[in-house]
């Protein structure tokens, strides 16, 4: 070997730092690898079994619990929502019925008022008509009397112009008889 001057650190590595044969089969390194592997595995085992796995298990269990609770709560809320909807529908129906009732009542009362007003107006009109008729009758009566008076006066004048003395009593009797006639 030309480079014998360099001290090879292991039988498995030549002087230029290249592997001799399979490094996997180099017995010089077994102890070191096994030692550090043992430490790594023990450390890892304690990390996992003491800290990591219990923590993840707790988190998963907690999540499962939360999910179950949330599902129950959701179920509850859904039931309540259904209930609320029912109540709302009921209220709506009630309100509609109430409104219907109020409308009917109002209609009835308006009709009543209208009828009453009509009736009142009718009676007033009747009263006025009666009054008017009475007045007409009175006026007609008054006119008859005036005609009788005029007729008497005319008769008396006629009689007087004929040269005779008119007797007031007989004139009015004659006029009355004629007027009845």
């Amino acid at each position, binding site marked *: 070997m030309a480079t014998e001057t360099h001290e090879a650190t292991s039988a498995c590595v030549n002087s230029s730092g290249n*592997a001799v044969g399979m490094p996997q089969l180099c017995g010089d390194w077994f102890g070191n690898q096994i030692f550090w592997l043992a430490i790594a595995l023990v450390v890892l085992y304690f990390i996992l079994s003491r800290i990591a796995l219990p923590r993840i298990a707790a988190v998963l269990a907690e999540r499962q619990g939360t999910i179950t609770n949330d599902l129950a709560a959701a179920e509850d809320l859904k039931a309540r929502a259904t209930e609320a909807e029912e109540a709302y529908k009921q209220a709506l129906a009630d309100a509609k019925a109430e409104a219907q009732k109020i409308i009917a009542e109002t209609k009835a009362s308006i009709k009543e008022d209208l009828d009453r007003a009509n009736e009142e107006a009718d009676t007033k009109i009747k009263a006025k008509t009666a009054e008017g008729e009475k007045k007409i009758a009175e006026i007609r009566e008054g006119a008859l009397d005036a005609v009788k008076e005029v007729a008497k006066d005319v008769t008396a004048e006629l009689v007087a112009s004929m040269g005779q003395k008119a007797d007031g009593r007989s004139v009015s009797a004659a006029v009355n008889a004629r007027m009845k006639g």
Partner: protein
Amino acid sequence: MRPARAETKGRRMATEAQGADSGGLLFHPMDQFIVRPLFGDGAVGLFTLTNVTLWMAIAVAAVFALLVLGTSKRAIVPGRTQSIAELAYDFVRKMVEDVAGKDALPFFPYIMTLFMFIVFANFLGLLPMAFTTTSHLAVTVVLALLVFVTVTVLGFVRHGAGFLGLFWITAAPLPLRPILALIEVISYFVRPVSHSVRLMGNMMAGHAVIKVFAAFAPMIALSVGVGILVTPLSILAISAVYALEVLVAFIQAYVFTILTCVYLRDALHPHH
């Protein structure tokens, strides 16, 4: 015999390295698996801080960041990091429950440790310049042997000699049973081998193939005529293999974990 062969090998590599200086292609697909001390160039001892230490520490830190810091808010509605942490938790837990059964749940932290470590080691190994800890036989063999020992001990503790019923298949005709038992015993002891070599082989193979294609990429600097075809092709191949490696990194972690679950089920319920 071996030292001599290593020396010839060393000479060969040395000539290659010299060739590189004069503009040759460099093929060192295995150099990425060398264990190096982080500080200095000393020999690698048992407690030396090496790139193995560094990348395992990064993997542990990444798992810590994801599973502990990511969930520190304990949010009911999870954020992005917490979602990933919960996804990983659910994924492994479901795997343990479905494959190994409910009574395997005490082993869930152990399996989660394996899965998180392997998946992070695999993905971190895909970073350029990174060291893939799971591509080393020593690492995967320890992981697989841990599973093998756990499963065997658990089986005998739970069922005593009844655990041997795993090898005595009562569904088969009686004359066949001894032969089947032999096969079952062999396959039982091959389990840790295949379990570890599968992971290590997959991780190493992809990385080595990427390195081989990467060595072809600078061909255009040597010869424009050949390089104009080879360089784009090798870059395309690197991208394709890298994409495959991303998939493999996850699938191998998944397969390692699910096989652990299968072995665990065998230990808990040996009577098929």
